[in-house]
């Protein structure tokens, strides 16, 4: 059964990769009749979804493959976004409202020259480095502390949520000099290219799509190595892994840091395409939303999160316009239904149907007591 879904996954990956990296941009740029044309708006929207998909993969590698439900992935995503945002803020130059060489909000806060920690962000390379170092360092510190004292399961979720909440409060403060609750916006240029031009946005879109594919392939490779097997063993029974002589904490720490970096890269690509970053992006509900995408798409698979991120966000874009009042109710009900009745998500539906059919057959032959369609969870120790 698993081989079927694996083959499906390979095909979906290849087809999706081609569609996203080559076909969509081509349809956008080639002179085609109107009905085939993909608008600039769609490219931008899909670019956003792709960033969400990267975030979703990072959640999935943690949750679906290692059994760590982190509610702090939005924090790392936003941290990466902030680092990119700092670079983009510096690139505005004197084109801001106040026509000062420093970002507008600093002028507003009464600064006349750049605070020292802002200065190196003139360099794109430094900003990118920081987008890896900062979330990486935070994840290392937090992960080290959490895994060392064997905080796991629900407690890990609650602690990551608290971490995110604390960071969110911190970024809302003006005195952090990171834009307070308005965050960063009004970006103009990236690496000398105008962010408002369709060409730049298309370039960013392609970069995002390629990154997503690389992340996908990388994670798939990792999940098939010995490391990946240990990782999945930790998910299935951490104690057995411990008794077998593996230092589970080290594995978990590595995965946690890796996923923080992946999420951060997603954030880096997200900010120039969306054009704004503020602390509400790191609220606890954003992390939970990312978990929803994974759950809907199907955790424990790598295609699932991408499907989930696209599906739920496309649904959200439509529903927030069509039924602005009812959208949250849709989301909530969908989430309850998926969690209760579809623990394996969209990707798992074929398997689930097949199992149901098999059960139905079996029940016909030897009138067994009825069973529910829910499989006991394997991720529990």
């Amino acid at each position: 059964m698993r081989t079927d879904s694996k083959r499906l996954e390979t095909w979906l990956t290849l087809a999706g990769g081609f569609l996203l990296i080559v076909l969509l941009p081509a349809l956008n740029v080639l002179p085609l009749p109107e009905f085939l044309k993909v608008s600039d708006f769609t490219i931008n929207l899909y670019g956003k979804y792709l960033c969400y998909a990267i975030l979703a993969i990072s959640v999935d590698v943690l949750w679906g493959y290692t059994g760590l439900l982190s509610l702090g992935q939005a924090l790392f995503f936003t941290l990466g976004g902030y680092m990119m945002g700092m670079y983009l803020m510096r690139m505005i130059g004197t084109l801001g409202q106040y026509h000062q060489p420093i970002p507008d909000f600093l002028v507003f806060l009464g600064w006349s020259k750049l605070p020292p920690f802002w200065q190196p962000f003139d360099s794109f390379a430094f900003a990118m480095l920081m987008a890896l170092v900062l979330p990486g360092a935070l994840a290392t510190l937090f992960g080290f502390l959490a895994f060392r004292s064997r905080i796991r399961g629900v407690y890990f979720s609650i602690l990551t949520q608290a971490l995110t909440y604390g960071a969110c409060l911190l970024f809302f403060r003006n005195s952090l000099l990171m834009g307070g609750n308005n965050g960063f916006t009004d970006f103009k240029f990236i690496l000398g290219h105008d962010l408002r031009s369709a060409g730049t946005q298309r370039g960013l879109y392609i970069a995002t799509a390629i990154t997503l594919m690389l992340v996908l392939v990388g994670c798939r490779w990792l999940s098939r190595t010995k490391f990946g097997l240990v990782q999945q063993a930790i998910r299935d029974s951490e104690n057995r892994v411990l008794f077998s002589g593996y230092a589970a904490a080290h594995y978990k720490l590595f995965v946690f840091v890796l996923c923080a970096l992946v999420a951060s890269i997603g954030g880096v690509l997200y900010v120039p395409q969306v054009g704004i970053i503020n602390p509400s992006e790191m609220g606890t509900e954003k992390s939970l939303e990312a978990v929803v995408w994974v759950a809907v798409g199907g955790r424990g698979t790598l295609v699932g999160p991408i499907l989930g991120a696209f599906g739920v966000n496309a649904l959200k874009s439509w529903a927030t316009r069509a039924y602005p009042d009812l959208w949250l109710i849709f989301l909530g009900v969908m989430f309850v239904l998926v969690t209760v009745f579809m623990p394996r998500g969209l990707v798992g539906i074929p398997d689930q149907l097949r199992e149901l059919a098999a059960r139905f057959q079996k029940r016909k032959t030897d009138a067994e007591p009825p069973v529910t369609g829910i499989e006991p969870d394997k991720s529990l120790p």
Partner: protein
Amino acid sequence: MTYRAWLKSLRSAPWMCWISTMLLLSGLARAAETPPAQPADSVIRSRLAKAVLAEGDEQKKEILSLAATGSKVVREVLNAWPKDRILLFAGENDTKIPALIEDETDSDGKARAVRIDTGAFLSDASGKPLKFAAADITTAETDSDLRRTLQQGLDAMALADPIPDARKTAILKLGNSQKLQNLPLLRDRLAIESNAEVRKAINESIALLQLGDPDPAVQKEAVIQLGKLEAIGSLDLLKKIVAKESTPSDIRREATSSIQSIENHIGVVNFVGTIFRGLSLGSILLIVALGLAITFGLMGVINMAHGEMIAIGAYTTYVVQNLFGTGFAFSITLPFSFGGKPIGFGLSLPGLNATGAFYESYFLVAIPLSFLMAALAGLVIERVVIRFLYRRPLESLLATWGVSLVMQQLFRMVFGANNVQVSSPSWLLGHFNLSDVLFGYNRVFVIGFAIFIVLGTYMLLTRTPLGLLIRAVMQNRDMASCIGVRTQRVNQLTFAFGSGLAGLAGAFLSQIGNVGPSLGQSYIVDAFMTVVVGGVGSIVGTVCSAIGIGTADQILQQATGSPVTGKIVVLVAIILFLQWRPGGLFSIRSRSLD
């Protein structure tokens, strides 16, 4: 001390008796302070009318003696007199009728006047009230001497006010007036004053006034006295004395030591205040987290919709308040239509239009109702969602988050996206003052409320058959089921009880904060942290951690000068604390592997 022993002491709790006795005593003390016997109103009125017309020393003497009666009419007249609002109406036979012109004027700028001697309106032959314009009337004249007497009378009246707090305010105002002629007034009052707080205020005011005394000996005595009284209000004046060049060295020395002792006192006051606020914040956390300690700690269900249970409690209070007032109504139109008609639903409940004490008693009705409503909602959620997830705690987190989204949106649709107004009953407003520390009634109430809820929960869990079943199921669901406990039923009841506790928290939170659709969200992280720090499954742990976190939060807020920084420090401290005790304060030890 083991925690069982601690609980035992909590149960016998002599301090509970103390608190109730003290509350009782303060009530009695209040009842005992009835105003002194007064001459009848009509006698005062006729004397007052005469006094207005009298002259010279006799007039002044009469005014002061009238002021001593503390009558409301006298106060009105004394206030109105210097403002030229006492009319001298020319009556028959060349008599003059003094009357008080009302503040309220009609469109022509004319006002009616009340006869001081009878209390009736001045009227013409047909009984219609006469109206007077300010420009064309003769008013009772005052000279500076008389005005001083009037002010003296008013001050004396304020000092004789039956409400101790009002007396105290008046006394401190006199103390800060820096007029030595007010001294005899204060001394007279000191001779008859019985309330200790007010006596202290009088002594303080006398000393404050004496600071301006030309005699250095008196001044020195006053400085020492202020230091002894730890009078916070005198700090600025004392500092001025120290700073002044001409101050004799011995007075300066005394003033410095007085300042020192006052500042020490301020330190103590701030500390006690912080601890008190910390305790009340801890109690709020406790009330919020206790329900979670049941559903999460005992049942292992991560209920992210716990915050919305709190909101249900708060909204129930809001609805009950409206039902006691003008009624409650809402209507929702869904963006779908059926057969051309839009689908929608609504509800309209008439109100009782209650006023006064009856209206304010709405809160007493709201408390049990909010418990019931939240428990009901909990019951439904348990049946619809959670019963599928008892063996998948991580997923119960996700599903209940979905529930919380739905509920928030429902709140938004029914009650609007903005905060709703919940007014506090008057007995929860205000504060009392114990040696300069302010104790807000609502904060005292929340502490009492928390104690009550914790004791109730503890009793339920340890002293009732239901509690026994709950503990059995929580310890080992399968085993309990094997020996015939109806675990499904117990789960239902336990979850409903935990949710009901959240509803109680909501009822209280509606009194101290905003009630809005995302009310629960602001408490949910704190509540989970409280339970995790306390040790999952331990009610005592939750109590300790709630109080500890609340107090630490207040102390850090004071120390860092910003609520947000304080909160962040607390969160970091919690993460570090869990390094030291991963299982929380009171972790349950067992041999099982997780």
